[in-house]
């Protein structure tokens, strides 16, 4: 059974998430602010932390940055009402394995928690859209590398990764994408985690600058 820790400053949201998760997972703790979250997660050692992006005392990103090095086994899933691109990108770059909005349905949330617990990444259509936007601003897609061994660099998406992201943004599931592109679900997953890795590791300024300006100007 997946052990989940819920961090959100609104008691109503925590209760709602608890109810939606139901009996399929064990909620091992809750916290309403950064300090109690850091303490509680240290003690509870959950499999997955559902993390609110906006909180008093530094936000979900502060929790992530405080604990990520210390607890490498904990997986983080950002759950937020915010659709602001810079928040999403910031929390992903801080180490979250996915991002879903609070409007997500119960079954979808359970599915997302499971997938994050299994080590997959969770791309909501909106997050896929943000990624496409960010990397489109950074430059055109490079041709797909013939071999996976050649690293195309962290700043660009391969043509295949772009395709996967576009299908995710169009609302396709991993399984549907695999069927559509004639690749296995595992391959789709590896494309998705590659994109996440690029998003986290690419240190060119374009990404952050994009996040800061694109949606704000």
């Amino acid at each position, binding site marked *: 059974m997946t052990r989940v820790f819920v961090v959100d400053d609104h008691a109503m949201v925590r209760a709602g998430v608890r109810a939606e998760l139901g009996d399929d997972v064990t909620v091992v703790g809750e916290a309403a602010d950064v300090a109690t979250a850091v303490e509680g997660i240290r003690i509870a050692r959950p499999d997955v932390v559902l993390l609110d992006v906006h909180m008093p005392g530094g936000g979900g990103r502060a929790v992530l940055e405080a604990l990520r090095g210390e607890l490498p086994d904990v997986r983080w899933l950002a759950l937020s009402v*915010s*659709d*602001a691109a810079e928040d999403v990108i910031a929390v992903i770059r801080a180490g979250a394995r996915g991002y879903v909005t609070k*409007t997500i349905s119960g079954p979808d949330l359970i599915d997302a928690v499971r997938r994050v617990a299994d080590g997959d990444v969770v791309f909501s*259509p*909106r997050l*896929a*859209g943000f990624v*496409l*936007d960010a990397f*489109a601003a950074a430059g055109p897609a490079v041709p797909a590398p013939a071999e996976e061994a050649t690293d195309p660099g962290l700043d660009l998406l391969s043509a295949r990764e772009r395709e996967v992201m*576009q299908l995710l*943004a*169009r*609302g*396709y599931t991993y399984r549907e994408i695999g069927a559509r592109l004639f690749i296995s679900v595992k391959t789709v997953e590896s494309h998705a985690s590659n994109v996440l890795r690029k998003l986290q590791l690419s240190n060119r300024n374009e990404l952050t600058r994009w996040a800061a300006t694109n*949606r*704000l*100007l």
Partner: protein
Amino acid sequence: MPRCDDQGVTTPAVPESPSPPQPRPPLVRVRSGRVLAGVAAGTAAHLRQDPLVVRVAFAVLATTGIGVVLYGLLWLTMPVAQPGTAEAAPPPPGVGWRPSGRRELFGLIVLAVVAVGLLSRLVQWGTSALLLPLTLVAIGLAVIWRQLDSDRELDVPGGRWALAGGAALAAGGVVLLLATTGQLTAARNGFAATLVILTGLVLATAPVWRRLLDSRSLERTARIRSEERATVAAHLHDSVLQTLALIQRHAEDPQAVSRLARGQERELRAWLYEPAVVREGGTWAGLVAGLVTEVEADHALIVDPVVVGDAPVDDALAALGAATREALVNAAKHSGADAADLYTEVTPARVSVFVRDRGSGFDPAAVPDDRRGLRDSVSGRLTRLGGTAEVRSAPGEGTEVELVLPRTVAA
């Protein structure tokens, strides 16, 4: 210009002149074309006279001493013209400082004569030994005043140096004055005592000054914050509170409630996070957001739009928007699904739109000819624009409509 309360200062004799079709310009110091502080030019503009005349009048009065006092008083009391207002009226010829014509030359000569007269009077007043230091002090003060003028024009390059020069002139004049009157040593002692007392006072009251400064900045912050709060409150009142009231009234109709909540959520979110889309409008992202809101309001369909890239709306994009709307409405009416995904991407080469639902789906080959919605509204429109429309569907697997509009044609 509502600021006419200064009129009475100089023109009490002409309160309601019948002739002027437009009101007199207000009595303000001009920003450009000033010689010293713009008092004469401003007065001239107010009296509708040539500035030269006023200047000469001031100079003549100055020989009696009244002119100097009057000028100083006016300098203190006349406000500076608002930027861009005084200049709006074409400046009368001769406003500039540089002599450009014979009239100017004449004016300068008059001024020179007056200056000589003034000097000779000054010489009469006291020993000529006093004259130099007094003049120095006067010039220094004039320079300082000009620089410290109420408008903080210290940013002008050289402004600080002029100020320092003025201070040095005035200080030199004072020292010289004291030296010539033989009171330098006495003044030095007095100066030292004053300095000590002043320093003591400043040090003793330093916390008070500090607190004053702090409270001023605090006040400023508080004001800005309260203004911001007022803006937010106004917006929330117009949108969220109204919607909440509507929701209470429709409490028995869950569908209406969820529709209202959804629409309000989207609106508030756009206001908070995508001010550009809301404020400017006229872009593809704004158009999509608008049509999604409309479709959600009219039909029981929840649409999650994802927009990548943006472009200004032209005729072709507006038509693409209409086709997108039609596709969404189709999904709402025929798919049976309660949600649809909308993805649209703007690249330099094309604008693509994908509308996907997970509803009942259909066999595209088996659509009867009288069901023309998709065919005419969507495919027809796109074909006319040089784009393509493709419908992928199978019974039980939902439907995806793909619209592609090349941008080279659109542009």
